[in-house]
């Protein structure tokens, strides 16, 4: 923190408190945030320079609208806590990654996650339907809460991924989904990673929407384990779709070996990424699924075997996943594949070898990265075991020991729009979420 003049300190006296070396402003209402920005502008001071902003006290949540399945949440609301509140109302935020669920609304929307969620067809859409954000002069941008608009530029986009540099999120109207209890896991093996990814791409095209997908290569095969949560009929359709596509891509149904550890339960509870591997318990499905309705003799045999081996397993939420096992396994893979790093599509910068040691809570293992499919394929072929979240044709959020892609805790770089949105540079010093 830079030195703060006595005049500024005097002007801020009701707006900040001292925490160690820092002056922290933690407004409890939007108006107070406006006052803070005015004082900073008047003294040519900035957020993130003289004063650190916390929006933790902007933590109000509206009663959800059951018809549109939306809820208004203020910037400081933790997504994990919100998800629990929504559960009581029969709603969910949908398939978000554990790392995203650990953030608050502002962090999820303004940071590199940009508030995105995957939707049917391999597309992405912003979770917020509308935002309320404070401009640098204290004025409020409130976008209209309608499902889609043709009303000029989508001004929500100055907030999403903007790092709080163009406008500061104060609240958002979030699109939820009806919450359903159906959870299923299906596992398939493919001769090549390309086949596995081809199958996934086709299934996304068809409208399947997996909550997460585990990809790993071992024993000369690429193993794909997909988890589905949602309405029973939808989950059923998605499993059928994936089964048909897997079959067409040369996949074989596999007993969901290892699914105990890989099948992540719905990302509930605002746990930190590294500790967010919420437990899942896999029990053999009562009804064996027939993954491939058609096909030649040879393929029918594999389909039958797939069904009998319970390629799809009903997963119940539980709290007992052996996280250390995950760590060990991933660490092993990390060690094995470090030598192959340079083959990664996204060409990581060379760096000194890191000793393989049991990672601590904030180790890279739990970090989420955004990767394109070519990089995902290369990583799997290099021996990495990956979990994909927020799947889309454009990119996925990936957990696994990786260096490539975009680290989703990266700071947001300065925007060329700052000059007009924040002429007095009040926001531009704001630390990125």
């Amino acid at each position, binding site marked *: 923190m830079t030195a703060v003049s006595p005049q500024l300190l005097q002007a801020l006296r009701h707006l900040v408190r001292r925490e160690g070396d820092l002056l922290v402003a933690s407004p409890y209402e939007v108006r107070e945030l406006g006052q803070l920005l005015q004082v900073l502008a008047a003294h040519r001071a900035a957020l993130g320079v003289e004063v650190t902003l916390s929006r933790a006290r902007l933590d109000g949540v509206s009663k959800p*609208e059951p*018809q*549109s*399945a*939306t809820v208004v949440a203020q910037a400081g609301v933790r997504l994990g806590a919100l998800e629990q509140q929504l559960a009581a109302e029969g709603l969910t935020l949908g398939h978000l990654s554990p790392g995203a669920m650990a953030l608050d609304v502002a962090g999820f929307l303004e940071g*590199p996650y940009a508030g995105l969620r995957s939707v*049917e*067809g391999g*597309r*992405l*859409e912003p979770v917020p*339907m509308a935002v309320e954000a404070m*401009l640098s002069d204290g*004025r409020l*941008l*409130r976008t*209209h809460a*309608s*499902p*889609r*608009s*043709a*009303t*000029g*530029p*989508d*001004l929500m*986009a*100055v*907030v999403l*991924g*903007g*790092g709080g540099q163009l*406008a500061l999120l104060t609240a958002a109207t979030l699109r939820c989904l009806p919450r359903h209890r159906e959870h299923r896991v299906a596992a398939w093996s493919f001769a090549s990673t390309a086949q596995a990814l081809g199958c996934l*791409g*086709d299934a996304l*095209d*068809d*409208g399947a929407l997996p909550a997460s997908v585990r990809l790993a290569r071992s024993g000369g095969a690429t193993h794909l384990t997909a988890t589905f949560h949602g*309405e029973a*009929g*939808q989950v059923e*359709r998605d499993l*059928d779709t994936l089964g*048909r596509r897997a079959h067409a891509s040369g996949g074989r149904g596999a007993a969901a070996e290892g699914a105990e550890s890989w099948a992540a339960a719905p990302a509930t509870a605002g746990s930190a990424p590294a500790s967010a591997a919420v437990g899942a318990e896999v029990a053999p499905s009562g009804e064996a699924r027939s993954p491939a309705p058609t096909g030649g003799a040879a393929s029918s045999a594999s389909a039958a075997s797939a069904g009998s081996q319970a390629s799809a397993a009903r997963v119940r939420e539980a709290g007992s996943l052996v996280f250390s096992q995950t760590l060990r396994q991933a660490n092993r893979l990390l060690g094995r594949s470090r030598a192959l790093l340079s083959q990664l599509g996204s060409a990581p910068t060379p760096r000194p070898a890191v000793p393989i040691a049991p990672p601590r809570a904030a180790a890279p293992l739990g970090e989420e990265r*955004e*990767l*394109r*499919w070519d990089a995902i394929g290369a990583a799997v072929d290099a021996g990495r075991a990956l979990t994909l979240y927020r799947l*889309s*044709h*454009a*990119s996925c959020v990936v957990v696994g020991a990786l260096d490539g*892609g*975009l680290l989703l805790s990266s*700071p947001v*770089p300065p925007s060329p*729009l700052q*000059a007009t*949105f924040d002429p007095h540079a009040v926001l531009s010093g704001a630390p990125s979420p």
Partner: protein
Amino acid sequence: MQGAPLQSHPVGALPPPASAALAAEGELKALLGGRVSHAELDRLSYARDMWPLALLWLREGRIPTPPDLIVWPRTEAELQALVALARARKLALIPFGAGSGVCGGTWALRGGISVDLKGFDGIGEVDVAARSVAVGAGVMGETLERHLNARGWTVGHFPSSIATSTVGGWLAARGAGQLSGRYGKIEDMVLSLRVVLGTGAVVETPQRPFLGPDFAQLIIGSEGTLGLITRATLRVHPLAAHRAFRGHEFATVAQGLLAIRTLFHQGLRPAVVRLYDPFDTAFVGSNKGPVEKSSPSERGPMARELLPSLLRTLAPQTLGRPRLFNLATSLLQKSRLILMFEGEEARARDEERAARAICRALSAKDLGEAPGKAWLRKRYDVSFRMSRIFDSGAFADTMEVAAPWEKVLEVYQRVRAAVAPHAFVLCHFSHAYVEGCSLYFSFVGSGGDDAVMRERYAALWGAALAAAVSAGANVSHHHGVGVLKARTYQEQLGEGVHALQALKRSCDPEGILNPGKLAL
């Protein structure tokens, strides 16, 4: 319509091109290889879009203010030179695609240079892994679809104007196609775009993953006020292997809306969802079982047979009093829903069956496949036949707004009530989402003479927009803002207009791009 009064001119006596523009013509010709015109025919052609207000004027032999010059650039370098010249000489640049807008978005309100972008007509190879294709902004919609279909792909964007609109126009106005339930609106289809800003800078927006705001979403919908879009990388989908159709008839509009909401809440994504309100439904002949007619508001409607004869029959008694007619139609109740699922065959059939179960649970009458198939055949008719209504001495227009589910019925009822004194109102609900849907109102009105009609037209729009907004709708779902809705748009933006203005200052500091649109 809103804001400063709009000027019109006799078609035979256009104002001469402004001297400032003419003075730049030589320099422009040098920059653009001669692709510059101030010919009267060109100025007439680029003076209007498909905003029905201009059709009313045309009937009186008048036309909106034409541009002073029209240019046909072909490269981004030419556009950059054009922007530099316009900045230096303080000339307005008005981007122009194919002119099918209905809100006056390409009108040269105070003259200037219309920039026809159809020269940006390249279509790249489909990137199969990324499911994307790079397309020039000037490519016509139908050309693009034919090109992709031949290779087994589709963009999934089918506006009724597909034969007379460009990719750039879709992006500029944030358009929607008829299959939005599955493929989304145009803003859902864009991975990246290239734009020449009003500063002269060429920007290509990043594709995921990237850090920072998605600049593409700030350009989409900007209606030419921030930059000239030259290219877009769009999502492509495999051409659907199968289509599953079903028509259902509900006892009331509310029941039909409940069915749509339930469909989307249960994870079903029909490509087409269209619920017709009772007036629309009544003309399809609900007692005759599956019929081969599409709904009137779909048919170029009202145009050929129904409305002209209706208007002729009822004209003396009711034309001046549409309230009576609207009252009569409020006695009708039944509401028809058309669904179309498409994609991989087994899944499309599964989804259609699941949808049928939902409709049956709401006591809908199953109308079979025929209504949906009939709709598909005639889905593009509407755009081409609108003018026949005008030929018959009446006027017609449409208003499409969107709202979250809890407000949809209120919007429907308030707009109907507000418009009732001015025109007949029909409505269908389409473009559904988990959180709401769009309402597509059609208005048909008449009046003693042209002056009365113009007055009635203006009153109708004022009342309709005010009612929609007061009930919680936005001002447009996919037609855009243009001139028509600029004032209501600005009112709805509130303090947010300062964000829009900051964006404008960043991208077009001199304000040369499409002045007067979007309230900028």
